[in-house]
């Protein structure tokens, strides 16, 4: 695996296979290009509107992220040494939530008349080597999930899908805070959650996705 400059090196090290082209395109939000607060939002939004695919692409993009997260916590539950007490309960709870998101988004893609993105083949590298390594990747996953949803949401056309995304992103944010607390980090490091920009990130993650 190459190590390239990306805002989410832990994620970049994770191999994702089996993405459809449309899922891949929207999936571009995985790293980089953060915008803060109100002032930065305007140009971001107009870019996102120009770049984003339709709702099906966005849903499939979210679905791919949720597949990754669900698999991540499911593997973590058996592979990470020393997962006990509160952390073990948290891993189980988050894993269950992510699987529910997967099921819901698969159903949403179908409701929209699309084909749900397939479950990607994943390799989480050294993320389960220790509790610290796991928490570090978990924080990255959840923070990135929040930014990905927040980034894609303004481009969503269907009010139903927007509502669903809002409902899910709030849970991702709660997960982010809870894993951050476990990692000894501030649960809410910024007053405005970063918004990830699709086209910039597309470039950043390209080297890490198997053709």
């Amino acid at each position: 695996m190459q190590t390239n400059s990306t805002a989410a090196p832990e994620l970049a090290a994770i191999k994702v296979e089996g993405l459809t082209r449309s899922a891949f395109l929207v999936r571009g939000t995985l790293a980089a290009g953060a915008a803060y607060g109100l002032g930065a939002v305007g140009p971001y939004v107009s870019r996102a509107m120009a770049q984003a695919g339709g709702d099906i692409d966005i849903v499939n993009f979210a679905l791919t992220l949720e597949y990754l997260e669900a698999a991540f916590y499911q593997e973590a539950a058996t592979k990470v040494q020393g997962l006990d007490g509160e952390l073990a309960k948290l891993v189980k709870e988050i894993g269950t939530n992510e699987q529910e998101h997967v099921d819901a988004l698969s159903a949403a893609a179908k409701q929209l008349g699309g084909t749900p993105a397939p479950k990607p083949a994943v390799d989480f590298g050294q993320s389960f080597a220790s509790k610290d390594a796991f928490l570090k990747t978990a924080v990255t996953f959840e923070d990135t999930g929040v930014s990905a949803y927040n980034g894609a949401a303004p481009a969503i056309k269907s009010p139903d899908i927007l509502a669903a995304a809002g409902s899910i992103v709030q849970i991702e944010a709660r997960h982010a805070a809870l894993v951050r607390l476990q990692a000894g980090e501030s649960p809410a490091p910024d007053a405005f959650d970063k918004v990830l920009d699709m086209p910039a990130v597309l470039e950043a993650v390209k080297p890490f996705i198997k053709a």
Partner: protein
Amino acid sequence: MPEQTTDHPREESALDELARDDSSRKRFLRTLGGAGAVGAFGVLLAACGDDDKKDETTGGASGDTTTTSASAGGDVDIVNYALTLEFLEADFYKQVIASGLVKDPKVAELAKSIGQNEEEHVAALTAAVEQLGGTPVAAPKTNFQPTLDKGLETVLMTAATVENLGAAAYFGQAGRIKSKEILAAALSIHTVEARHAAALNQLVGRGFKGKGPLEGSLPDGAFAKPLDMKAVLAQAKPFIAA
């Protein structure tokens, strides 16, 4: 003024109903447990579709005029509503810190950092109202003394509940916001409120689900539920001085 556009008919949101009505809530939970996430999501989709159509219900609570559907009036009102909630939160943390109730340095640090976030939200939303050509609401006169008088535990429990309320309030408005820029801003604040909520509910030991609807770090499980203006303002009312 033009008629309400047809894509915004007036209707009570099913999710709002769920949020208030215990029996509906139980039905919703049964759907979650019974038909699984897909079924629940179907309910959510149907409900949230209505959510977009509830201007009258929610708008009525704040006395706004959402009949002007084509104007920015709706967004100004929504941002001013969010600003009011942020004013309340910011002042609450300020008073909590000033009270000296919080002795644990870690808790104090969290309270301070959350309070700073809320101040930034106040500043950003004030600017947003101005950008929209509106007049930012004045900071409400608050009434937190009774809460403070009850001591640290009540204070932290209240903070945890209020953050869950804030997250539900932002989510409740997402479908009503017309401007994509305002929507993006609201979403980036929404998730920060959710982070606060999860952290504080964890801190006070409520677990994933607490006893009440606004209690717990993941009070609604995998899918967050919105609250409309009326429901939120009813909860916030005790903290606003008459």
